């Protein structure tokens, strides 16, 4: 059966979108690492990388090359198959989430409406949660297969931590889902168009969910930091306690994959925060038609950048929680708050609905 030219065109567009997203994402990850090193350095009154290229801008390439050329040490006692599987799993899962994340509106090309998103799943949010919760396997498996005590502790800690915080993470966004009435990320963003009208007057506040779901957002963001294993919740790899945590026994490119996955996950949770609570790509749009396509992407990137900045800022400031305190915080504080938030939201939604 011959494919129609339309189908071929759409297939081509999909391939182009996948390639572009992957390239942009990988570059972005590399430069987030650079940004983190620069920012933390400036917080700590250092210079950070500045030798490789102007402002050390080529440092990510140098780091990447270094990882590639390092000797790949595989300890004798590891469970080889799982030991290999874990980093690939971690990296692949981190990349998969970007399939459903919308970066902007749409534009017309040869009579086709093209959306700036790889796939608009109607259960996009569920898909993301499904994929990110699989991520815990890679860490648990890495910790177990290394057959060493420190990685095992790291793996155990992170399994417990990610499972506990996944709950709060999922419950925190339920409020926004009730308001927008959809699981598709595109629909959720589109429901945040315009400005808030209060008692008939225009408040000129953007119609973002953050203004009706501040509690949901705070719970989401705290849980997201824990989910991505960042300070103050970076227990699985807390280097002063567990040396390197689950990736202690990994070297060379396998370590780099864990490393990239961590940063990719940071981008993912920042993207979701932007989409669910900060109106996605919505922002002032003006100028010629091509600006109408590019500006939303810019707003989206800017919002995501703000979250990433916050992540790095926290890292430069806060100490680390202890394991039991982390669990207590997750179960005894975040979870009840998220539940109460759902309860309150559902009452309000029902009341307005009638």
């Amino acid at each position, binding site marked *: 059966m011959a494919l129609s030219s339309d189908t071929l065109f759409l297939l081509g567009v999909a391939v182009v979108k996948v390639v572009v997203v992957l390239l942009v994402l990988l570059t972005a990850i590399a430069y987030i690492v650079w940004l983190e090193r620069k920012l933390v350095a400036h*917080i700590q009154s250092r210079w950070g990388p500045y030798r490789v290229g102007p402002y050390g801008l080529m440092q990510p390439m140098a780091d990447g090359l270094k990882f590639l050329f390092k000797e790949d040490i595989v300890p004798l006692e590891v469970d080889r198959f799982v030991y290999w599987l874990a980093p690939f799993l971690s990296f692949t899962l981190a990349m998969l989430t970007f399939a459903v994340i919308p970066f902007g509106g749409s534009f017309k090309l040869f009579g086709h409406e093209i959306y700036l998103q790889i796939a608009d799943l109607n259960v996009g949010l569920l898909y993301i949660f499904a994929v990110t919760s699989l991520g815990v396997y890679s860490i648990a498996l890495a910790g177990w297969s290394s057959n060493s005590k420190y990685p095992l502790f790291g793996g155990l800690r992170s399994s417990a931590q990610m499972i506990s915080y996944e709950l709060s993470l999922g419950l925190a966004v339920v409020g926004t889902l009730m308001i927008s009435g959809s699981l598709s990320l595109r629909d959720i963003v589109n429901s945040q168009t315009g400005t808030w009208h209060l008692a008939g007057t225009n408040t000129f506040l953007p119609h973002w969910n953050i203004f009706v779901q501040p509690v949901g957002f705070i719970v989401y963001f705290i849980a997201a930091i824990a989910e991505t294993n960042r*300070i103050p919740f970076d227990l699985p790899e807390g280097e*002063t306690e567990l040396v390197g945590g689950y990736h202690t026994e990994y070297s060379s490119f396998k370590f780099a994959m864990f490393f990239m996955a961590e940063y990719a996950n940071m981008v993912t949770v920042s993207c979701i925060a932007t989409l669910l609570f900060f109106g996605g790509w919505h922002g002032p749009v003006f100028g010629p038609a091509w600006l109408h396509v590019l500006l939303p992407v810019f707003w989206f990137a800017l919002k995501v950048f703000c979250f990433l900045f916050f992540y790095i800022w926290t890292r430069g400031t*806060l*100490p680390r*929680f202890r394991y039991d305190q982390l669990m207590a915080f997750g179960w005894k504080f975040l979870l009840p708050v998220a539940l109460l938030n759902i309860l309150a939201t559902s009452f309000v939604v029902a009341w307005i609905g009638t």
Partner: protein
Amino acid sequence: MAVTLEKIPGQEERVILSMGPQHPSTHGVLRLVLELDGETVIRSLFDIGYLHTGFEKSFEDKTYSQGITLTDRMDYLAPLSNNLAYCLAIEKLLELEIPPKAQWARVLLTELTRVGSHLVWLGTHAIDIGAMSMFLYCFREREEILRIFEMVSGQRMMTSYFRVGGLALEPPLGWLDRVKKIVDRFPERVDEYEALLTKNPIWLRRTQGVGTISAEDAIAVGLSGPSLRGSGVDWDLRKKQPYSSYDKFNFNVPTRPEGDVYARYLVRVAEIRESLKIVRQAMEGMPEGPIKANAPHIVLPDRESMKTSIEALIYHFKIVTEGFHPPVGEVYQAIESPRGELGIYMVSDGSPKPFRCHVRAPSFANLQGLAKMMEGRLIADAVACIGSIDVVLGEIDR
């Protein structure tokens, strides 16, 4: 054969974890063997000796003056305190009278050493608990103190600046201005550190009620210094057994009754402030006069008289080639180093080299309290406890 813990029969599911000597938070080359139930520490054992240098034996093979260079390298974070303890012990043996200017300079420099040492402690302790930036801030400030040391002695860390009978050299012109700059600016910086940590809820949760040791236990295992004062015992050798004219200075000895990691943190931070007060007093009241005792057969003559007077030249030759002969006897001289009671026990047989020189290292004694602190706590607490007693391995493995 490395030291290890044997598993208790019937408790085979417990993990024996070897922590160190290559571990990011064992402050050098301390090795811990922990028996863990989950993440809870059941028993612990310390394995020291990875930095063994044989200093105590080496002292016996060096003249009294040559031994000073070894003391720098024991507690490498507080070289001047070590110099002071060693020199004071010999001076006690010789019954030397030290001129006031030398005494004041000694006090000033050892207090700066205390500040510098506490800064390293604060930085590493904070990074152990995850607050990374503190480490960099503390080392930035310590740099200024090291510059002062470099200015007066020519060396940043291995200063060997105190000599038997006084100081090695006349301090350079303008050094007090540099000291003043530090003293003026420092309290503000300490406020900054406190703003980051003292009331930080995560910091409080990580340190309060963690690693508690009672005053009785602390005294029983021989804790000293800030680790002891954190348990509420008001014991500071600068007050209780004044040396080097500390009795002429006005300062407080901070103590806290709680005995936990947080108490030890507060005591040390308060000590930084008190030390700065002492530095200021020493700086403002610095007397004029000689920097060496009037004892030509012990103290090296200055260059000028060595080149112009035959007696000075002969003394110089005698001291350098042979050393001096202290009377037969034994002394114990303890000072309050940044880590606690640093004692030097010296036995002289009348020859120019000590017959025996034993060092009572505060870190070594403080380490004994660690097992008590860590019992039944989590691994993360163990790391906080190690940081809170501020061990320096160079001093433990003499």
